[in-house]
């Protein structure tokens, strides 16, 4: 009888210890890693990002979701940019196992060409109508001009002429000029690179963020984006994730304008 009681008590203690271990482990897993920078430093990095690299190239996955969480549209994106205006972008639409070439964009810094493969059309344009003088870009929130209470946002010139869906995140100086609130919420790794996780709210009294960004600790570009539903917590409407990234590697060999045989000029 005594040994039976001891066995029951032993099992009870064992269960308690196991429960405690599970509880401790799950708490440790959910605990956010503390960020190494505060919010003002992070925003300053967004303003200055385009000065922190000479070239970037890599691949990304872009996914948009329906209200029920199913994938609505998915794209793969290959990109290469230099700070002085070279650009090479290839966007493919993904449908299950199928991948369809959708858009190519090439810029040699003077002339830019976009091919929309599905429509069989292309556009050639000069880059001269976009701001050439980067010193005109605001370097801090204090330098952002406002009109009628709204900001006048100066996007990076490459962000203006590239139709790449990633481009505002690779040149985040425009995003830094918005009037909403950024809040650093933690740290994480994306594609083996250290990032600071920040949430963006349209207004100071908003309860839910409209987006969550993973900002590269070294060069300030945004490596991952979650566009969030302001009605439902943590419901992701759209997601961008950089899956590979090279910094300051030569990209000149990628600047090749596509053949236009069989294509119709748009402009």
């Amino acid at each position: 009888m005594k040994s039976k009681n001891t066995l029951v008590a032993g099992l009870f203690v064992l269960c308690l210890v196991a429960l405690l271990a599970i509880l401790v482990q799950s708490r440790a897993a959910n605990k956010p890693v503390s960020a190494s920078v505060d919010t003002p430093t992070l925003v300053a990095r967004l303003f200055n990002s385009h000065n922190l690299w000479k070239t970037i190239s890599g691949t990304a996955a872009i996914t948009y979701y329906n209200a029920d969480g199913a994938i609505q549209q998915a794209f793969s994106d290959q990109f290469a940019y230099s700070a002085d205006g070279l650009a090479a972008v290839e966007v493919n639409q993904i449908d299950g196992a199928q991948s369809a070439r959708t858009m190519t964009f090439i810029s040699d810094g003077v002339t830019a060409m976009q091919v929309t493969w599905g429509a069989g059309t292309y556009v050639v344009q000069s880059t001269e109508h976009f701001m050439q003088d980067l010193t005109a870009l605001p370097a801090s929130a204090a330098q952002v001009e406002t009109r009628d209470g709204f900001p006048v946002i100066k996007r990076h010139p490459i962000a203006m002429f590239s139709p790449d869906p990633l481009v505002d995140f690779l040149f985040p100086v425009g995003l830094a000029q918005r009037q909403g609130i950024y809040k650093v919420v933690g740290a994480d790794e994306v594609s083996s690179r250290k990032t600071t996780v920040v949430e963006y709210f349209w207004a100071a009294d908003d309860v839910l963020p409209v987006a969550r960004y993973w900002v590269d600790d070294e060069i300030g570009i945004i490596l991952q984006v979650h566009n969030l539903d302001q009605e439902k917590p943590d419901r992701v409407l759209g997601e961008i994730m950089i899956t590979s990234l090279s910094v300051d590697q030569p990209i000149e060999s990628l600047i090749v304008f596509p053949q236009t045989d069989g294509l119709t000029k748009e402009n």
Partner: protein
Amino acid sequence: MKFTIRFFYSSLLIVVALLIGTLPVLGAIYTISETSSDFFGVSLTNVSALSCNNGNAKATQQATYSTFTASGSWYAYVGTRDWEAFICHNGGSLPAVRYHIVANTGENWYTTVNFENWLGYVDIGNFDNSNTSGRTQMTNQCVTGYACDSYRWIYYDWVRYSTW
């Protein structure tokens, strides 16, 4: 005495030089004007929203990306120099819009603006020649690589431009 006269003439020269340097600046009055509301193509709905600059905007729905059934475009005729589009964020998911800007010289360019990201005035390009005018055209067609469905509203508020 000589020194006083020299000092007087030097001062006079400096004042004249400053006046000459200032006159062109005074003559070039910087103004900002709103586009006329000439719309062509699709039917635009009037909306009232606080986030739109003056509480009013026009809107249309984006085409269903698979069929482009509601395809259309509209124009606004604008002046010269720096062009800014006012992006009115009225909640929900917004589309990306590809602006086509056409100068009367024949020059033209495209710029894509993801409405999802912005609230306020966004730079959409400029002409170097202040005597050039033109028009901007927006369409409700999908932009490759961006989210697109017929539930996304394109809010058209102001396109502004500056002249000197």
